[in-house]
């Protein structure tokens, strides 16, 4: 059921989100129609279609968003103000050394996709993920484990990857596993629940990543100019450090200060660092670089993780309480910075009017 607040069109998307600086370049509105396009990380309404009730507006993670109605609220599930709704949290890692060494931390996403594609072998499964086009992150479609290995690794950039989903929905018939940032998981959930997008039932599984902010592509322009890099092999943001890159020009490390300048403005209004609306949310453990944190948020997510575990692609372990506390603290701090402002960076509270207000208020109380 579409709420009244979401019955708006591209003019409002342009004014309230893009021009206001809140676009996080998820790409969900891009390529749905001929009017909205993206170039690198820039999304623009080329011309208004003249309609005032559009899918473009309602899928946007920066228009009215009601987390509770989009979450998988079940009795056996936990909901807290820091991590959202989930069944359980586990430590996980890929068993195949090739995968775990290529992937980020424990290589769980890569292993999950490998397992999922294998499982859907006869149903035409594909994965939408983010690789590189030169040095710029670019969405691509993975059809086999080779494709997936080629796109493995976090990018930390605001790639409008869901434009690729819109194209895949238009052109094919495959079931699609999407790997994306929390904002992209939100867009997908809104697309599935509210939109009239044809083929949306083909969105098979949403693997959300932990993300505390994404970087504008202007950082790549700088890297290209300053270090003459042509290719990025791997990116990481170690705890309390800036961006660390393995490139064709060797290892390049930016300080946190340098890196922060390139944070996408829209990310400052994000209160969802752990992909609360994904089926599975995956991120680092911040302690153990050989393992990943996996938050199981839906039955479908749980099922696909179990299959990967049963087939021996992934091994899991109990999530220690110490890690859980640290994760909750990190997530809560991110939310606090948004709702209350960041005293360290001397930034004020950010406009979160896109969130359903009662919920936002409740979360604040919960955190206090």
């Amino acid at each position, binding site marked *: 059921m579409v709420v009244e607040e979401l019955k708006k069109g591209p003019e409002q998307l342009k004014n309230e989100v893009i021009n206001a600086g809140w676009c996080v370049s998820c790409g969900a509105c891009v390529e*749905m*129609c*001929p*009017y909205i*396009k*993206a170039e690198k990380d820039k999304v*623009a309404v080329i*011309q208004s279609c003249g309609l005032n009730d559009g899918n473009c507006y309602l899928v946007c993670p920066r228009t009215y968003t009601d987390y509770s109605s989009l979450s998988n609220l079940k009795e056996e599930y936990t909901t807290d103000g820091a991590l959202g709704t989930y069944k359980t949290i586990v430590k996980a890692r890929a068993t195949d050394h090739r995968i775990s060494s290529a992937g980020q931390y424990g290589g769980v996403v890569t292993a999950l996709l490998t397992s999922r594609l294998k499982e859907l072998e006869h149903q035409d499964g594909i994965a939408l993920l983010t690789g590189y086009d030169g040095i710029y992150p670019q969405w691509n479609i993975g059809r086999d484990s080779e494709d997936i290995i080629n796109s493995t690794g976090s990018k930390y950039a605001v790639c409008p990857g869901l434009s690729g989903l819109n194209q895949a929905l238009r052109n094919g018939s495959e079931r699609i596993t999407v790997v994306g940032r929390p904002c992209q998981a939100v867009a997908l959930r809104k697309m599935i629940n509210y939109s009239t997008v044809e083929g949306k039932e083909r969105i098979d599984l949403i693997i959300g990543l932990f993300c505390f902010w994404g970087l504008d592509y202007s950082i790549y322009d700088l890297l290209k100019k300053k270090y003459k890099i042509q290719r990025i092999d791997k990116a990481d943001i170690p705890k309390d450090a800036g961006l660390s890159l393995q490139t064709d020009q060797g290892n390049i490390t930016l300080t946190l200060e340098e890196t922060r300048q390139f944070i996408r403005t829209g990310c400052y209004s994000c209160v969802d660092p752990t992909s609360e609306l994904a089926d599975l949310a995956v991120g680092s453990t911040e302690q153990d670089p050989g393992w990943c944190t996996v938050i199981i948020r839906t039955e479908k997510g749980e099922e696909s993780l179990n299959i990967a575990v049963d087939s021996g692609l992934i091994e899991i372990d109990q999530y220690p309480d110490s890690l859980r506390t640290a994760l909750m603290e990190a997530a809560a701090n991110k939310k606090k910075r948004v709702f209350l402002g960041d005293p360290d960076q001397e930034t004020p509270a950010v406009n979160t009017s896109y969130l359903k207000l009662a919920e936002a208020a409740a979360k604040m109380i919960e955190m206090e």
Partner: protein
Amino acid sequence: MISLNEPGRKVIMSGNEAMARGALEAGVDFCTSYPGSPSVEIAESLFKLKTEKKVYGEWSTNEIVALEAAAAASFAGLRSICIMKQNGLAVASDFLLSLNHPGTRGGLVIIVGDDPGAHSSINEVDSRHFARQAELPLLEPSSVAEARDMVRWAFELSEELETCVIIRAVTRVCHARGNLVLESIPDKLVQDVRIEPWDRFLCIAPMHGMVHMRQEKARKAFEESLFNLYTGPEHAETVIVSSGPSALYAHEALYLLSLNENVGLLKLGTTWPLPRDLILEHLQHASKIILFEETDPFLEQNITSLLAQFGDKKYAFYGQASGYVSGDNGPGLGELNVDLVARSLAKAFDLPDPVKLPDTSQVNDLLKGSLPEREMALCAGCPHRSSFWAIKSALELDGRKGIVLGDIGCYTLGASKAGFWLLRSLMCMGSGVGLANGFGQLHRFGMKQPVLAVMGDSTFFHACLPALVNGVYNRANFLAIVLDNSITAMTGFQPHPGVGVSATGEMASSIKIEDITTAMGIRTEVSDPHLLNDTIKIISDLLQEAGPGVLILRKECALTAVKKERKLYIVNEKLCAGSSCGCNNFCSTVFACPAISIGADSKAVISDVICTGCGACALLCPKGAILEANKGGAVS
């Protein structure tokens, strides 16, 4: 038809063909031109005959080069003709204002096509002022037959006066068709031409006196010219002075109002220098002088000053200045016609309005609702449509509110809905990139917007090269986009230096635009505009660069391409969602290809007659509902 050597035969020809015929009857040897409406078919008619009648013909890169080349042939003793449109004479004027000093040898005739009402021009220009400024003889034909006669005579006159003669032919003479009795075409003697050791063609100030002398000689010749004709009573109280087709309108209007017994009509065919004595003879005794002429009050002002100097009484002038002679939109705007002339006359004589027909606005009211509204549109499959959409997309994505400058060509429609209102400037040929040289320096004054200039391929050679050189030399920040449809499309597919074919159909060197701009040191990219995503990417990329950049958007004009190979696209009705699609009928209403309309159930329909198969709509359709006919899209 125009080369038929059957003297005495009566034929029908267009004014342009008749002028070409006049040149042939005068034994023309050399013809140069830059295509421009309304005079384009004069040169085209001659170029078709090059072997038959041994006329050298060329499409020159621009009008000044055309006139210089024609003048050289004249210096060598050949009869030569140079043809252009009104704006072209402005381009050629620098040379014109110096050519009048040394004068010419072989007959040199310039035909300038003026376009009152701007049917196929961006502006209304009265070229007669150039004749006055350059002190050169000027002829103005009223009819098709007279146009032929004037061209033939102009060669003799040019040789007699030893200077070039300008013929101003307006659209209604160029494009009208009329009767003509053919005269013979001389057999040309083939002889070698040479430049003698004493020949000098110099423009130096002391020769100014010669220019005056030739002008006076021309005036004397004009006093006797049969192209000037007075009809009506002797010593009429009221005399009309008119030139060009207006003289015919005046003639007809006088009969319509039964004023022909009382009012004199002095039709002038030689309008600069004015035949002073002839004019004084017919106007001295009149008290009311009415002037009918198109565009500017050229005769009005010059005759007013003539009578102020030589007349012996007070005259009342009824012309543009007094507002008596006026088109629907005001004096000096648009064309005249018999109705307008008759109305003006009736006003001057206090007679009831003789015109029974409704005027334009009434006609429009009567037709309202019964005719579909038609917007200015680019042709089906026109690569400019894709180019403009790509430019618009790239600018929106860029977000800095870049500006696009333009000039004259089919792509002038970029200033309208057809080109998504992109063009912010529209002036003479080459002015887009010229202006970009200025806008491209304004970053010094805080301007943050990217500057783009579009130009056609023919325009690139015509007028853009000095501006590009300037941009490189002075490091202006702009992106020059050449909308290369590989032909001079707007004037009817004339070749240009990039095409590889000459005006007369022979193989020619093809000068590649990218070779020139690369040699200038400009980063140059080439893209097919119909490949929209690639093109948007390249423009986005080039917009990040400082200094001048060049993007050539190359795709053959759809109207020439379709003659070679034709694909057909059709709409899969099952896939097209019609008005329930979020695209809101994008293909027919926004992208607005004239081949696509809205059919049953608001679904898109592609006309198999109009579609040229460019495929751009198929790339843009969000449902993938537009398919190439023989590639899975076949409808049985």
